[in-house]
């Protein structure tokens, strides 16, 4: 219970931070709702007393008006508060989503490649979006407050008759809460079993409905295989599910029986009091409806609490994820490289990924001078992409340093450092905005420069044919009139983006993998046009790309094993020569 309280507090601290006005509004709404039962509890007593007494018409009329107006006005006010709260809740939900989005975007990069964190994220986000967790959390918390307030008022009324009644009722509540505790424990057990099953379910759902595997599913007759897996899952999960709900039903049923017993006792006590002529009929009606209302509200309160606790689990996960810290300290310096030439140096860099035993990069030392073109090659898994990630400051070396003009790159602010690099990743991403926006990103947009970049990338004709030209949106999931470009065209667009960026360093990671030989040649032949006098790093399996670079760095098993010009390495007997031979043999022997 303490844990739930803690989670509740943490959650509402967050709510307060994101939307300070929400909490006071919610309290007010809860308070006003709490008043509702009292009119129909108190006023009938007054009416009955009068009816049994003097029967003064004018007084009776007043009382009736009081009931009707009281209920009416309170009703209107409460509906108004509901309207404002619906609105406020929606607003809150949005703020929470945006807050989370910002948090994710600003996480230390190493977390993004950590499957454990990905898992944590999915677990934190899925229930938010799919089960209305935040909505329910806020709703049940407000209900808790509302019911508690009502209960306090009712207790005041009932204790006028006999405070022992309160004690009795609370005793029953305590009994019921023991039952709830047991139910919770059982539920948690089942819940643990269900989590991996739910994940499995989500995976199957995606597999069958997202159609990206449609070709394979048909051509490889995967239907029976998938069917079996689905059926198997169904049996297990659904069985568990029914068991869980059945268990809920039993516990809730039991607590209902206890509540009914409680009601019977209260009624008996009232009847006895009337029997002994200690209270009148009017009071009988008052205390009975107060007790009934009290019992109902206790029931509602416990129900809300149970639901609240359920959602605490999800909220807890969400809060934990939201609290993931930033470990890499943010530098603040601004690199002064606009006029001065730029030297990048890797100095005895060692790196291994978090949670990994082996080093992915071992003692790598390399100097890149201003305007130099470097080709980075090596077998799959040799560390080339890791090398790039370190260069991009997505990770920090464990040992050794990376220096920009003699200064450790960690000292610079992220934003300023990124302004220096234009990177085309292998798994690049474009956004569903206009082509112009994808090319210019955050920089000012000069249509002439954009056109030039498109030309250099070999895309300008294709774009010119589009009715909206560079204002055409990409993809169809944002704007409906967006276009789907082919894989090769996308790659060219990313190249155009890199060309457009006004910065001293360009990194290209397999930029022609999806291009046909002509397009590839276009890129190669214009390479110097593309990068001009910028420093460039080029990774490619196609060793032909090495020919237009100044130096080649060969990586193997995390080490820089060979470094030199093409002539030097090709003539040598090392790994590069072997790879070159393997790839070029077809061309050299077959060529015209």
């Amino acid at each position: 219970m303490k844990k739930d309280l803690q989670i509740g507090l943490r959650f509402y601290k967050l709510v307060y931070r994101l939307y300070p006005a929400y909490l006071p509004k919610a309290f007010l709404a809860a308070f006003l709702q709490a008043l509702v039962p009292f009119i129909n509890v108190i006023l009938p007593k007054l009416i009955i007393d009068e009816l049994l007494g003097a029967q003064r018409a004018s007084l009776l009329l007043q009382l009736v008006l009081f009931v009707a107006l009281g209920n009416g006005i309170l009703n209107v006010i409460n509906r108004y508060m509901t309207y404002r709260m619906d609105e406020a809740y929606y607003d809150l939900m949005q703020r929470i989503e945006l807050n989370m989005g910002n948090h994710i975007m600003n996480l230390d990069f190493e977390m993004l490649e950590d499957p454990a964190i990905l898992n944590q994220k999915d677990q934190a986000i899925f229930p938010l979006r799919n089960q209305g967790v935040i909505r329910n959390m806020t709703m049940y918390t407000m209900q808790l407050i509302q019911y508690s307030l009502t209960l306090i008022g009712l207790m005041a009324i009932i204790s006028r008759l006999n405070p022992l009644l309160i004690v009795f009722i609370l005793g029953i509540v305590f009994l019921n809460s023991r039952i709830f505790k047991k139910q919770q424990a059982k539920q948690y057990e089942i819940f643990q079993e269900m989590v991996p099953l739910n994940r499995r379910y989500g995976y199957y759902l995606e597999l069958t409905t997202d159609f990206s595997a449609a070709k394979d599913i048909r051509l490889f007759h995967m239907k029976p295989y998938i069917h079996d897996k689905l059926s198997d899952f169904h049996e297990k999960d659904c069985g568990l599910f029914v068991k869980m709900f059945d268990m809920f039903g039993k516990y809730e049923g039991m607590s209902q029986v206890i509540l009914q017993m409680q009601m019977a006792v209260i009624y008996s006590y009232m009847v006895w009091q009337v029997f002994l002529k200690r209270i009148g009929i009017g009071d009988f009606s008052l205390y009975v409806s107060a007790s009934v209302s009290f019992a109902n509200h206790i029931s509602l309160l416990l129900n809300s609490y149970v639901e609240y606790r359920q959602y605490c689990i999800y909220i807890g996960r969400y809060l934990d994820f939201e609290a993931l810290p930033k470990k890499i300290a943010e530098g603040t310096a601004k690199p002064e490289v606009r006029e001065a030439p730029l030297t990048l140096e890797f100095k005895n860099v060692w790196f291994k990924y978090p949670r990994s035993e082996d080093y992915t990069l071992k003692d790598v030392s390399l100097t890149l001078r201003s305007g130099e073109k470097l080709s980075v090659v090596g077998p799959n898994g040799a560390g080339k992409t890791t090398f790039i990630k370190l260069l991009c400051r997505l990770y920090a070396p464990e040992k050794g340093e990376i220096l920009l003009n003699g200064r450790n790159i960690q000292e610079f602010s992220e934003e300023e450092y990124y302004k220096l690099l234009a990177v085309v990743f292998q798994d690049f991403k474009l956004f569903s905005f206009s082509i112009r926006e994808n090319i210019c990103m955050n920089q000012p947009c000069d249509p002439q420069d954009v056109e030039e970049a498109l030309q250099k990338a070999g895309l300008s004709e294709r774009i010119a044919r589009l009715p909206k030209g560079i204002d055409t949106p990409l993809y169809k999931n944002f704007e409906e009139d967006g276009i789907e470009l082919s894989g090769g065209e996308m790659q060219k667009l990313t190249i155009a983006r890199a060309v457009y960026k006004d910065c001293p360093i360009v990194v290209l990671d397999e930029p022609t993998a999806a291009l046909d030989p002509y397009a590839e040649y276009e890129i190669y032949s214009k390479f110097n046009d593309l990068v001009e006098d910028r420093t460039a790093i080029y990774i490619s399996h196609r060793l032909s790309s090495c020919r237009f670079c100044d130096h080649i760095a060969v990586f193997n098993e995390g080490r820089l094993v060979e470094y030199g010009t093409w002539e030097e390495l090709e003539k040598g007997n090392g790994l590069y020569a072997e790879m070159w031979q393997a790839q070029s043999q077809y061309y050299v022997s077959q060529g015209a």
Partner: protein
Amino acid sequence: MAESSEKKTHSLRENYRWLMQQIWELDKTMYLNFAAFTVVCALKPFVGILFPRFLLQELMGSARAQTLVLMLIGFFLSGAGLFYAYARLQRANLAKSILFRISVLRKHQDQCLETDFPNTEDPKFLTASQVAMDGLDGNGLGLGGVVERSFLISGNLLAFLGYLALLTRLSPWVLAYLLFNAVLSYYFTIAAKEYESSLRLPFADRNRRFMYLFHTMYDFAYGKELRLQNYRATLAQKTHTSQQEMLNIRRQIYKKNFTSQAADALLLLLREGLVYIYLIRLVMQGSLSIPDFTMYFATVAAFAQWFKEMVEHYAHIRAQNHYIDDIRHFQEQRNNEDDQEKLPLPEAPYSIEFRNVSFKYPRTENYVFRNLNLTIEPGQKLAIVGHNGAGKTTFVKLLCRLYEVEEGEILLNGIPVRKFDREAYFHKFSVVFQDIKPLAFPVAENITLSENGYDEERLWKAMEAADIAEKVRKLPLQEKTPMLKILDPEGVEFSGGEAQKVAIARALYKQGDILIMDEPTAALDALAEARIYQGFDKAVHGRTAIYISHRLASTYFCDVIAMFEQGEIVEYGSHDQLMQQNGKYADMFDTQARYYKENPEVAGR
């Protein structure tokens, strides 16, 4: 080629009947739940209404202790029994409702798995699928919402008879007045729901855009780009703007809800005032006892509440009608069935002929092919090269019969492929496409596509040929190691190149008579690529094979090369023949080879 049938919206009655049929089909016992719940819900409210009345009557009358005690015991037993039953049934209903929803979702999944392939690339179909899934998602809305509310409505329906009986005893005029009042209230509620419905499309549109922005922020895959492009703040800003737009629409809906409810509240005020005055007058006239007064007082309040809830349930169900429609529409789509009798497939080896084939994708203007003619001899290795967008992948899809040809014919050993059963036809092909998607199951299952009954020796041979056997041997559970981490944290993530090799192994394991590879070595390094091609030669022996590849090095292994350009075969022949021809193929080859030569003319150096 299946066309999505044109959509016509069914009425609520029709859709509701369809829903009841689905319940009958998928879970008959739910009807029992409906029945039991109805009975319990009908009786439950009257315990609290009738019992106090009888108790008071006795108290104000004879006040016999024995009678009072019996009444109290009776009250306890009936109350406890009914409330216990209610709690059990409520949970059971919820469970059934969720399971039902999942069953319907399974039917949806079946449809996705079985639908003709062209549908899976048709935006209309994809939207229909997404929209149907929206209706199946979650409990409060869509199908789940309708089922839940149905329970509540059936529960309350009988109760109405009880109220009817009581209120008629009081005065038919009171009943008439209350009903009239209730009907007005109904119209207010409906008006609000209609308004909400009318804004559904503009809202859905903005929601789609918001979801895109949301996913881009949340998806780790965008992490590198967002950082390196310094785009994070901009994206956050765009998202915020999008959110504001949606909030504004919601505000309008909530406001409209409020105005209709405020009107409703005033109605309530009127009703309460009048009825209570009427009741009091009756008491003052002596024609109504106090116990009866309390009973009717409670009844009027309960009836008002009852009616409000019924209206709410009905309005909610009405608002979900379009969801039911979407779900139903999607599931009722049928593939085009060809009633003709199917021929058995001939024995290998196979020759394939494209005869005057013209093809364009459904609902598009441009033909991908016009009068394409090509023959692939048995056991031949064919390479297909050409620019991006020249029609190479479409060619493969037609060859595999993922799309059917309308103009012209494709012949297998001289027989038009239409005459063969499509599933049987699929059996003959082993295909590796460009977009590799490993399944989160053991490597062995990814390759053999069966959990237990696979041939181990065949599996290892396939893995050897695909150059992945060594890697698999080194894995903790070897071939039983799961391939992704999503379902099993002990799973292993394969690199792009390794996943490609697994896909190749799968194609080789199948031992289809016709092997098709679309860019099979795009993600592999030079040495791995060389190993694969050597492996192919051995593994393919004698079978017909078709390679699509930009890497002209692969054409070295092939007997003939077909060069596609703008949907036509512009050159055809062996590598030597085409190089001699000195045409487009030779040009493309030279371009790629340029940098591998000894003294290339490197531009600009």
